[in-house]
């Protein structure tokens, strides 16, 4: 097929009909919710996150009203504690992070000229998990059962069941569920950026938004798992009385603080960088020129990500740390301001060098930058440890973090809303209402939060449901409350503007005259995403490449057709985006919803101690997941290759490091290994902090024998799987199956051997943190051995069912990736619990 084939309008119309049929969304009262096309799931996702934001905002408004005057009794202390806990937790876990993922699910395929993300069903699964978990956590306040320990949930206040109730479990288990879905979305986004770029879009031509998504998704991958590890320890203590944080039994409350803030500080940048990413898209558009300092910005984003993992301790400056830690973490906390400054000045330089078109999105961007800079500067102030000793846990911090989050997340999102609304709906929002709302938000935010700097320095601690009149804080607090109501009114104006949108006429295509790929979207958008997948030669192809839009529209680039009636997109190489293969994408299916529901059942039923029902749900989750994988992945195509235009033929099946599935497994396992290292960190944290760890009475630990046996079995299972992959690739299917059986047997035997260590030595996990953490590492490892056995069985079954053969071996390759990580886990865990006691 050459370019000229596309000259025929009848041919193009036939192609369009086929594409339309393939991408037709499911209809019907129930079936429509089985859709997994990114532009639908993304919109549901955005709307849900927006609704949670409004809900959490109302909670804040109640709090501000309570604090309007001293000694107020609008709400009780108990209610107030639920309000601020839920406000912070929802804004972070149910709004800021999911909103970034939701916006990215909508935008990323457009930005990359892909038809969809590589795993559309995974997006749908993430969305349904998010909705279920979010309603569970947020709805708890209507039953007076919301978490009330602060969004940081410091033990022992939250782990002692006599001091905190069901709310703590709802927080831990409900949000763990959402963290799982966040990690799932992160996997999807990373693979999308790395593997689904259009031909020619080398890393250095990638839109900055995609760079930021990559950076932020990688941060999620390393930041959320330590919190998940912390959640596991936390619930073990609450549900099983294993004393990780109980100082009387060798535990340490500070372990939680470390695990929480190793997550918590990167979290700030996880919610801030995507907003900068939105700036990076709209600043060039309204400056009418390329962004200045592209490599600088990429380096700054990566640098911010690195640094953000090295400064969590600045949340713990008042816990009595050694002075050397103070100095180090003060320095690191100040240093993170440098890449931020680089990014801001790259935008300023771009505006300066370009011709600025003033617009509502730019107004929002300007306002948010002003607010963010104030928050950043107070951030440098609190990075100075001595100042933080005074400011910490006061309203000064409340002011600082809201300046950062409003300037760095919320207002940029509104800028993005006004900028991208035409892309999603084909209609512009009202400039007039947008401006009115902006000024209400801007004045409201400053009126609310600026006085808090002073109320904090004048001695008002955070998280107080009331304050005495004698402190002279009435005026400042009243100002804050009035500001909060003004701010809320601004949000209401935006909501009105959104509600009026369906009545308005369609805007023209690419209404801001932008240069990046996503603006190919047509106001009467089709579900296929992009008509043909372009060849990219510039960072701003619409501006720079000749007749670009027309060529895309006329299907003159790649993959303009859907001859086989399948949803497809192109996979390219990671660095230079050379086309590798055409992959078939997931179609609407009920499996993601069922998997999300049953997994949600595991978390929610555990909250209410309904362990048998939770177990049933766990089995159902496993069944759904296997059904999903069995019917929807690594399908052997009906022919080996297909043409995509311009004389290029691409394979329809790939496996190993070239394939998105391999990357997804690898990335998921990176997250898994990070969570595991959080648990291992716990073990060595106890050892460094406590002279009596392991205690003399238990110096023998689980012994050396059984852990070493389990280690050998785990390594054998791993080697057997590698050998199976190798002989399978050479065509010896029979031997490969035998090796897989050996793997299954050794994995299962490893479970028994792993448990035998602490079991035969009578280690009582309720007695002390040492047996508790040994049991935790053991249970984690044998659970992974169990999953290994399931995966090996899956590969074996695929082979027997002829869904896997030596030419189509993605399953066994992906299982091998899992086994690499399993072997690592087994070696570290068993060496730690078996060998370490005799070394120390």
């Amino acid at each position, binding site marked *: 097929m050459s370019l000229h084939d596309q000259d025929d309008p009848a041919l193009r119309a036939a192609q369009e009909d086929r594409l339309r049929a393939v991408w037709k969304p499911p209809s019907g009262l129930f079936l429509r919710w089985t859709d997994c096309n990114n532009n639908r799931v993304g919109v549901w996702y955005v709307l849900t996150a927006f609704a949670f934001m409004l809900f959490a905002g109302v909670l804040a408004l109640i709090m501000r009203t309570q604090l309007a005057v001293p000694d107020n009794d609008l709400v009780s*202390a*108990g209610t107030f504690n639920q309000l601020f806990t839920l406000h912070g937790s929802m804004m972070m876990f149910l709004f800021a992070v999911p909103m970034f993922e939701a916006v990215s699910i909508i935008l990323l395929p457009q930005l990359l000229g892909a038809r969809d993300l590589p795993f559309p069903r995974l997006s749908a699964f993430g969305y349904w998990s998010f909705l279920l978990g979010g309603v569970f956590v947020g709805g708890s306040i209507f039953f007076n059962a919301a978490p009330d320990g*602060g969004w940081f949930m*410091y033990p*022992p*206040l939250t782990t002692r069941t006599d*001091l905190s109730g069901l709310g703590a479990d709802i927080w831990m288990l409900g949000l763990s569920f959402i963290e799982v879905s966040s990690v799932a979305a992160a996997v999807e986004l990373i693979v999308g950026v790395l593997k689904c770029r259009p031909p020619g879009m080398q890393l250095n031509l990638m839109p900055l938004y995609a760079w930021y998504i990559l950076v932020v998704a990688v941060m999620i991958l390393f930041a959320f798992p330590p919190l998940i590890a912390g959640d596991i320890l936390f619930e073990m203590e609450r549900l099983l009385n294993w004393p990780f944080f109980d*100082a*009387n039994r060798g535990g340490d*409350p*500070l372990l939680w603080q470390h695990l929480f803030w190793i997550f918590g500080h990167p979290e700030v940048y996880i919610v801030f960088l995507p907003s900068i990413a939105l700036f990076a898209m709209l600043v060039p558009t309204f400056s*009418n020129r390329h962004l*200045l300092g592209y490599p*600088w910005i990429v380096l700054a984003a990566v640098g911010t990500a690195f640094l953000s993992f090295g400064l969590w301790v600045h949340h713990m400056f008042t*816990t*009595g740390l050694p002075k050397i830690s*103070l*100095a180090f973490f*003060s*320095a690191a906390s*100040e240093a993170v301001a*440098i890449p931020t*400054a*680089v*990014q*801001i*000045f*790259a935008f*300023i*330089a771009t505006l*300066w*060098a370009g011709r600025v078109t*003033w617009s509502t999105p730019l107004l929002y961007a300007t306002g948010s930058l002003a607010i963010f*800079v104030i928050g950043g500067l107070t951030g*440098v*102030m609190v990075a*100075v*440890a*001595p100042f933080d*000793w*005074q*400011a*910490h*846990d*006061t309203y000064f911090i409340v002011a600082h973090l809201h300046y950062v989050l409003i300037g760095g997340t919320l207002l940029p999102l509104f800028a993005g809303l006004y900028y991208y609304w035409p892309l999603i709906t084909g209609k512009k929002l009202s400039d007039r209402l947008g401006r009115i709302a902006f000024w209400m938000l801007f*004045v409201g935010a*400053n009126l609310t939060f*600026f006085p808090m700097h*002073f109320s904090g*320095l*004048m*001695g008002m*601690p955070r*998280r107080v449901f*009331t304050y*005495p009149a*004698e402190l002279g*804080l009435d*005026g*400042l607090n009243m100002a804050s409350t009035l500001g909060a109501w003004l701010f809320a009114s601004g949000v209401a104006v935006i909501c009105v503007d959104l509600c009026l949108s369906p009545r308005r006429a369609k805007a023209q295509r690419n209404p801001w005259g932008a240069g990046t790929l996503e603006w190919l979207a047509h106001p009467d958008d089709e579900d296929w995403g992009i008509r043909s997948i372009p060849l990219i030669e510039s960072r701003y192809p619409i501006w720079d490449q000749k007749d670009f839009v027309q060529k895309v529209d006329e299907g003159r680039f790649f993959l303009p057709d859907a001859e086989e009636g399948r949803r497809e997109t192109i996979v390219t190489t990671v660095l230079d985006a050379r086309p590798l293969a055409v992959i078939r994408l997931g179609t609407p299916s009920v499996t993601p919803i069922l998997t999300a529901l049953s997994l949600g059942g595991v978390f929610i039923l555990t909250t209410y101690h309904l362990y048998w029902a939770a177990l049933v749900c766990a089995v159902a989750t496993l069944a759904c997941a296997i059904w999903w994988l069995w019917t929807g992945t690594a399908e052997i195509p009906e022919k080996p290759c297909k043409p995509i235009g311009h004389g290029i033929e691409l394979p329809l099946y790939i496996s190993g490091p070239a394939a998105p599935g391999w990357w997804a497994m690898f990335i998921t396992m990176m997250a898994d290994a990070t969570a595991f290292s959080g648990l291992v960190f716990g073990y060595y944290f106890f050892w460094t902090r406590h002279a009596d760890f392991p205690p003399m009475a238990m110096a023998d630990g689980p012994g050396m024998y059984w852990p070493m046996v389990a280690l050998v079995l785990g390594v054998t299972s791993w080697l057997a799987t590698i050998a199976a992959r190798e002989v399978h690739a050479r065509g010896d299917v029979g031997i490969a199956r035998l090796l897989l059986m050996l793997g299954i047997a050794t994995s299962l035997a490893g479970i028994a051997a792993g448990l035998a260590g602490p079991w035969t030595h009578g280690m009582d996990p309720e007695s002390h943190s040492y047996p508790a953490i040994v049991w935790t590492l053991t249970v984690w490892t044998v659970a992974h051995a169990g999953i290994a056995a399931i995966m090996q069985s899956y590969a074996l079954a695929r082979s027997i069912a002829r869904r896997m053969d030596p030419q189509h071996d993605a399953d066994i390759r992906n299982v091998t990736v899992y086994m690499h990580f399993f072997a690592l886990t087994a070696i570290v865990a068993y060496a730690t619990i078996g060998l370490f006691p005799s070394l120390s």
Partner: protein
Amino acid sequence: MARMLLLTMLVAALTGCNAQQSTLAVFGADARAIRHIAIILTSGAILILAITAALYVRAVRASEHSLSHEQGMRMILWVGAIGPTLILTALLLYALPAMRPRPADPGDLIIRVEGEQFWWRAVYRPSDNAPPLSSANEIRVPVGRTVVFELMAKDVIHSFWIPGLAGKMDMIPGRTNRLVVKAEKPGRYRGVCAEFCGLSHALMAFDVIAMEPAAFDTWLADARAVVPLPAIATPGRVLFDAQGCGACHTIRGTPHVGTIGPDLSRFGERLTLGAGILPPTIDNIAAFIRTPQQAKPGVRMPAYPQLSQEDASAIAHYLKGMK
């Protein structure tokens, strides 16, 4: 906008009447040093904000090509990267000395303070060999002398904060944190719990009294002298015995040696009731005895609603009489 607000707020701050619990109204050497740092930091922040805002306005108003590509890259390098690096390095070097803890001698007064839900247990341990002095919800310090606080917690994490004296320090179960301070100005001040610790976190404060050294020594000697109370059976005392208050509270010189609740030995000289939240009037004390949850949700003390108003007042009189 921000600057206008700043001015109004500064005026409000200066005319504000809170001299008891503010990092701006200092009475200790450490708080004074930090206030100085705060002023430097704030001035720097305002200056940087102004420069950034000016550059931004200039950038938006500038005509096209008024900044070349090379000039733009230079701006990112110098204003975005090198400038902040220099400023922050200078700032770190300036602030480092303040991170050193105040030195303490073995002879300095040690006050061990334990945070409990939702009150403070204080034990004074001077270097002499006399027995330590227990007290609650009130801390007295001599001005001009170094004082070492040993901070602990029994139940949950609290944070010990006297804004006018020094920065805060957490009280963490299983650990002992040290905070070394030096008061400079006598007077009555207030401290609060700064780490969220449960239902009545907002109601966990304490009085701080900075005294001239001689007056402090006299007070300490008086307080430590165990004077057995005369065995006069006042109604309040009889009720206190009968209701079993001594199971949780200590009154020295009597058989009551409970340590679950605050030590009440010199309750009469306390300036507040319920950990810094109420004036210690007879009515307030009586109400607190009968329904402590009303004043302080989540408090550990059981309610005594069966006590009549008169009986509760009698106990209040008895407690007020102890000085």
